[in-house]
């Protein structure tokens, strides 16, 4: 029955820019806005770059220079696994005395997964363990760099002209430096708008080196247009008749991972440096607070800030489902877990007839009308033998069992359709104590944190009808 515990059986509705239904384990909770957030309604920012195999951190500027590739690690061009350096002993004459022969170490790259070696493409063994391997140079690099410079200059010139036109309409004593620092215009050939939103006021780092000083003339970079050739190299005569040797031909994936060369033959697949991964931090779009901020160290998987929904919102899970029959009432056992340390009161409300969120349910559900009380999560409870069991008067028709911060309760389900999966939806209302809000000094001696009531729309997928 482990399939009942699968995360996608219970979905919570997130009301953001779009309505998203997602399991609670994949949601975040902004405790300043007191709302659920999903990955699509937060902004993702790059925190740091690191290499996944040597776990070396790389500052963003250096990462950009190296095109987001690690300097030490290589990827197998055949199966994209990480390459490891292996050593062999080869006899070689001593440099001083040509008659004596000693064993020297020669290093080559090998893949442990598909057994590709650097000798397969003809790369000679190197005498140093690391740093000896070079990627082949792209023959078009110079031309591409020249073109990029030319177009960046063109874009900047156009932007200046546009700003100048705007300034000409304004009053004449506007400072000239205004044009350098405004990013109201989307920069052509530059970064996207998302990143620019957060950087108002900072100069564009892309063109930083090329920033114009007032009055200075920029050197014109001339480019020649590409020449179209009339004659194309003819295909070899046996192109259509020669049988294809499959081990020699590269797969599309192998080919496209090297967009510079896109080799068609397996003997030209050279290893590339390993791509860096990023650690990202998430930020709520409405209140600009961080929802998730990982640690800087690549070897650490912890978070500095981790506002995940499972730590704040009670978790509904399906425990057991009886045989569901069309138009017959059955009892489904659900569990509710309290993630916080204080007592939580949960009320379940069935969705009304005209509820706009209730699009997926195929069955009628009768939820318990009474308020369910959940004990707080007490980490030391299992070690404390003298603790008195908390006395909650539970109605045995509603509450099946109670165990520390978890209760099991029944809901009644009447499937309305003859075939297809049974899906039910209801609303869950619980109290939330916001510990992030500043504690107001209260004269009457109120509870330190005020409780607010949050309502969530929960959908359960109960599976197919019994045959």
């Amino acid at each position: 029955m482990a399939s009942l515990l699968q995360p996608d059986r219970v979905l919570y509705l997130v009301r953001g820019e779009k309505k998203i239904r997602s399991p609670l384990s994949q949601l975040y909770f902004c405790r300043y806005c007191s709302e659920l957030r999903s990955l699509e309604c937060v902004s993702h920012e790059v925190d740091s770059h690191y290499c996944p195999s040597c776990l070396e951190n790389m500052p963003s500027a250096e990462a950009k220079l190296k095109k987001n590739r690690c300097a030490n690690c290589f990827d197998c061009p055949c199966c994209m696994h990480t390459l490891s350096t292996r050593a062999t002993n080869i006899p070689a004459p001593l440099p001083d005395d040509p008659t004596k022969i000693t064993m020297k170490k020669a290093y080559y790259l090998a893949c442990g997964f598909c057994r590709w070696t650097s000798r397969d493409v003809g790369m000679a063994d190197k005498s140093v363990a690391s740093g000896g391997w070079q990627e082949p140079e792209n023959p078009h690099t110079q031309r591409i760099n020249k073109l990029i410079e030319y177009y960046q200059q063109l874009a900047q010139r156009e932007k200046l002209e546009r700003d100048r036109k705007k300034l000409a309409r304004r009053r004449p004593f506007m400072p000239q430096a205004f044009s350098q620092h405004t990013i109201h215009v989307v920069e052509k050939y530059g970064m996207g708008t998302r990143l620019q939103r957060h950087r108002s006021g900072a100069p564009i780092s892309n063109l930083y080196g090329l920033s114009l000083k007032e009055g200075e003339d920029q050197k014109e970079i001339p480019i020649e247009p590409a020449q179209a050739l009339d004659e194309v190299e003819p295909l070899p005569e046996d192109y259509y008749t020669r049988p294809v040797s499959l081990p020699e031909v590269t797969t599309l994936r192998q080919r496209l991972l090297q967009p510079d060369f896109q080799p068609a033959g397996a003997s030209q697949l050279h290893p590339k440096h390993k791509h860096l991964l990023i650690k990202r931090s998430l930020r709520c779009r409405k209140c600009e607070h961080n929802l998730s901020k990982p640690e800087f160290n690549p070897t650490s998987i912890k978070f500095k800030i981790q506002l995940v929904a499972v730590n704040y919102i009670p978790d509904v899970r399906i425990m057991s489902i009886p045989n569901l029959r069309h138009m017959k009432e059955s009892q489904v056992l659900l569990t509710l877990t309290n993630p916080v340390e204080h007592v939580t009161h949960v009320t379940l409300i069935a969705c009304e007839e005209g509820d706009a969120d209730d699009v997926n349910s195929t069955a009628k559900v009768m939820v318990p009308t009474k308020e369910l009380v959940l004990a707080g999560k007490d980490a030391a409870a299992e070690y404390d033998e003298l603790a008195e069991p908390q006395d909650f008067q539970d109605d045995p028709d509603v509450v099946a069992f109670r165990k520390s911060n978890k209760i099991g309760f029944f809901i009644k389900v009447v499937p309305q359709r003859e075939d297809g999966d049974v899906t039910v939806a209801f609303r869950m209302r619980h109290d939330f104590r916001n510990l992030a809000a500043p504690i107001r000094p209260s004269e009457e001696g109120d509870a330190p944190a005020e409780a607010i009531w949050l309502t969530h729309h929960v959908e359960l997928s109960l599976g197919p009808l019994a045959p």
Partner: protein
Amino acid sequence: MADKQQTVLKSGKIAAGAVVCVESEIRGDVTIGARTVVHPKARINAEAGPIIIGEGNLIEEQALIINSYPENIMPESEDVEPKTMSIGINNVFEVGCVSQALKIGDNNVIESKADVGRNVILTSGCIIGACCQVNTCEVIPENTVIYGSNCMRRIQTEKPQPQTLQLDFLMKILPNYHHLKKTVKSSGKN
């Protein structure tokens, strides 16, 4: 018309120089060559015919080499000829692999949890990757590497290295910790 209901007595020989641990399970007519190491808990089962294993092989724990009856033939039917499974030299059967291939050449490596079917013939230098199931009806060309969850194939330029270092080490260390099966110098009478 030998009475096939009779249990087959264990025949076949273990050559001198082979290291076969007592905890390994060897059933049926199995011949093991010199310098072969059979780890404890390896299983070699010659139920439908004899198995001949060459020299310098490495058979690791929980590996299963089985000469089994083809699936749709009952063991009791009369017209089943016992086919001999032959395994060459310098092969490696890694932990947990299952090999039913009738003919295995030299220098092959069957990695952990790989499954080789009965109708596959491994030539030499082949590497069947971990968890790959090969149950086609074909001869695998030399120096083929089968890897990945989709059993992709490629040809490598040189055969895998024979595990001489590992074999030497095991032949020294295993007798310190395990009892070994007795080796026979001359061929036994069958």
